[in-house]
């Protein structure tokens, strides 16, 4: 599972740019107080790469991911997905963008309580172009035995894995994962990361993973560090380590 160096962006400059943000800011207004969640982010994500985003709590990781995924709008600056300008896109265009290109894993899972694990996946695959079977996706995250459980009947980690199955099942062009292993023990966490890497390799999917776990950075092509709403630095790994080798 050693990554081919030729695949890395630094190795071949001609890789397509999937996401490009310029001067992205996001300001929340809380009463009279302004909270600057993002203060000018310039960033590119390339096709087929796997990036890991690190940063202290409150540094703006979720905010950035949400804006790139069309779940939120920036206060200023621009976001582009391939040829499509997302910055001022209509609600309808954003909906189509999310439906056709993006898979999400939310920090708080956000499963639908009235649907079983299988149905939580199916509700997404039903509107996708080329999905896996829900069962297949759940098997990839080790939940073959829990197909008909409702979220309330699953452990936190299991819920998180359903959320990941839901994101990967549609075989999206980009996969945005907000702390996908936060609630998992290292063994299950690694199993999940392997599933993400599998999607990345097999489908050439661009994968962005937010985490607080420095170790996970080693499986990435690049590690992006955020601090106070800015990109602090970007580290390019010479070599991606397969998740199976990671220990924490």
């Amino acid at each position, binding site marked *: 599972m050693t990554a081919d160096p030729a695949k890395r962006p630094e190795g071949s400059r001609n890789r397509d740019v999937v996401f490009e943000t310029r001067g992205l800011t996001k300001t929340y207004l*809380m*009463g009279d107080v302004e909270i600057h969640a993002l203060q000018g982010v310039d960033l590119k994500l390339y096709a087929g790469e796997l990036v890991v985003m690190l940063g202290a709590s409150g540094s703006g990781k*979720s*905010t950035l991911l*949400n804006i790139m*995924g069309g*779940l*939120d*709008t920036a206060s200023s600056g621009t976001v582009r997905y391939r040829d499509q300008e997302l910055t001022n896109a209509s*609600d*309808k265009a954003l*909906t*189509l963008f*999310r*439906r*056709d290109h*993006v898979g*999400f894993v*939310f920090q*708080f*899972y*956000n*499963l*639908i*309580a*009235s*649907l079983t694990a299988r*149905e939580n996946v*199916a*509700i*997404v695959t*039903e*509107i996708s172009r080329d999905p896996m079977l829900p069962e297949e996706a759940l098997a990839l995250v080790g939940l073959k035995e829990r197909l008909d459980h409702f*979220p*309330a009947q699953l452990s*936190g980690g299991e*819920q998180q894995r359903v959320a990941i199955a*839901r994101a990967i099942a549609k075989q999206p062009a980009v996969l945005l994962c907000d702390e996908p292993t936060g609630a998992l023990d290292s063994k299950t966490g690694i199993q999940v990361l392997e599933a993400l890497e599998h999607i990345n390799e097999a489908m050439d999917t661009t994968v962005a993973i937010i985490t607080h776990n420095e170790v996970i950075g080693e499986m990435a092509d690049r590690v992006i560090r955020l601090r106070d709403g800015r990109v602090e630095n970007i580290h390019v790994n010479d070599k991606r380590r397969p998740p199976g080798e990671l220990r924490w």
Partner: protein
Amino acid sequence: MRTLNRKLLRDLATLKGQAAAIALVIASGVMTLIIAVTTLDALSLTQQRFYEDFHFAEVFADLKRAPESVAGRLRDIPGVNQVETRVKASVRLEVPGFDDPVRGLLLSIPEGREPLLNQLYLREGRLPEPGRAEEVVISDAFAEAHGLRAGDHIEAIIRGRLSTLRVSGTVLSPEYVYQIAPTDLLPDYKRYGILWMNRRALASAYGMEGAFNNVAVSLQSGASEAEVIDHLDRILARYGGIGAHGRDDQHSHRFLHEELKQLRAQAVILPTIFLLVSAFLLNVVMSRIIRTQREQVAVLKAFGYGNLDIALHYGMLTGLIVLLGSALGIGFGAWAASGLAAIYTEYFRFPEMSFRLQGWVVLLAVAVAAGAAMLGTLRAVWGAVRLPPAEGMRPEPPARFRRGWLERSALRHWLDQPARIILRNLARHPLKSSLSVLGIAMSLGLLVMGAYQLNAVDHMIDTQYRKVMRMDLHLTFSDPTPVRVHSELRHQPGVLAVETYRSVPVRLLAGHREYRTSILGMDEQPYLRQLLDGRQRPQRLPPEGLLLTDYLAQDLGLRVGDAVRVEIQEGHRQTVTVPLVGLVDEPLGVGAYMQRPALNRLMREGPAVTGAWLMIDSGQERALFDRLWDLPGVASIGMISEAERNIREYMDDTILMFALVFVLLATSIAFAVVYNNARIAFAERSRELATLQVLGYSRGEVSWILVGEILLLTLVALPFGWLIGTGFAWALNQAFSMDMFRVPLVITPGAYGFATAVVLTASVAAAVLVVRRLHRLDKVAVLKAVE
């Protein structure tokens, strides 16, 4: 099945209590409209068919006596279609096994066959055979009241001569759909019967051979009724005609018309209020329920479901509830309406009820309910999809919290933490809280209105029979009688008090408006039949001038001091002008009043009376009746207690039945609203409450947060509900005033009390239900499942 639809059914199952409650609100709204409109429609349709099929006449005239040859002249009047001359006789009846006085009206029919006009519907038996003098057909209500069948016998005293009559059949007549004795307000089938007899037999018994004393006329289409009446009056004046009149002044028709008018008022006002209230409640409740799903909306959006998909999804959720509610409403509405219509046929004697469910009513009712529910749904969906999904997915922001007046006020020192949480929760969502309060207040208002109807009718009848009609018996004489009859009556054993009166049929004219009634000439200070002033105090009659029921005066556009033109319909039949000197406040019927001597002067006659009111010793009632009947000239004896009983029964069966149905519906709405409010509060707070419990708050304290909120909202809603209910009652009252009766706008403390009790009970029940739910709640699961 698409997963989204599966979610729909699961959500519906989870919401089943609330969905059922909402369906109930919808059903109630739909039911009110269907009941009111369908009952009204059934009655008017039935009336119309009966009138047409049995040739109900259009103009009627009574006279002393005219030779049959006059009929030809009547036929020649331009505009007249058919003419039916008749002999009509007031008689006394004796029914075997029944001791009370029974009044009867005998009408002639052509020998052994149906008349041209006012044809009879034969319910049982056959018409009298030609030439059979002793055979009669009797009104079916009278037959039913006494259990009389074809072949039974009754006695009649016609012009003082007793004859035995044989019942050959029972019938219904379009002329007597509402069978009521001339001095009564309501039918009394036991004590008033209508009979039809062959013309020759009746004419010879009543001294009317070759002559007639009543005529019914139908008009050619397009003919002017007023002109025909004028013409008839001119021809019949010589023969003692007392003024022809159209259907408007025909007893049965007029009452039926009034009843339909009152029903129409109910049919418009009540469902309008009910539907509007349920529409408001649906709107609010649906939008709040959908709002609790805002996280799910965000998730669906995040994965690429479009706004339309989402709107459709929740629209279907609402649609299913509306469907359920409408089906219930239509089913029960039709059932209740046919039941109510059947009750009306007790009072209005029709051959059969024509009952139909009109499409437009159903459509309108469902459209209003569905529209309101959908509006609420879409409003909430719109609110949810407008947010970027990232924001929608965040659990309801604890962000908006402000240190409000509560934190600053002195209250906080003695409020414990749970109480502070309650107040803060409410203060933080002022709009939501006020809508909840308004919702509860509206359902309380409906209850007040319903209870008002129930109580006010009683109040009205009490006023009539405790303050106005204080006599026990009401006697009428066949002709004006010298006043010495007063002392004759007074000296009968068992008579405690007597007052006599003179009654003269008149037409009151004011501008282009007119009204047929009688002027009652009474003692200066009547005691047995009182005239109340605007403040419900008995008033004294001035020596000259006329008093009118305030409602009638208003209807005629007259004010005290105005001159009233009075067309006297008896004796010299002149038109005189009398000043209006006062108004009378009375809840039932309308009338005109004068001092008797003044009325006698108006009639250019000596002191004469036509009736008497008696107060009697009830122990001697039986014997007294017999003696009174034997007095010469007594035409009828009416028992006031019977009349009161009848009117109470009638009100119970009709208006109050209606009101009761509506009170039941209002009650179910109140329960539905309060329960829904509680459930939504529960849904919105369950996380917070579970957290508090996990943090160490006791079950009781946590329950109190929920219960306190529910009760506080209810308490705040009470005064608004009373106010709204008073407004509703006023609106209903405005629509409810008519000749026959006027329900006073008196909302008793009992009405407010009842409505309040229902709402409080509903609140407590709802609180108990949600607290039980709270105790069953799996705290860990709630905290775990971030939807």
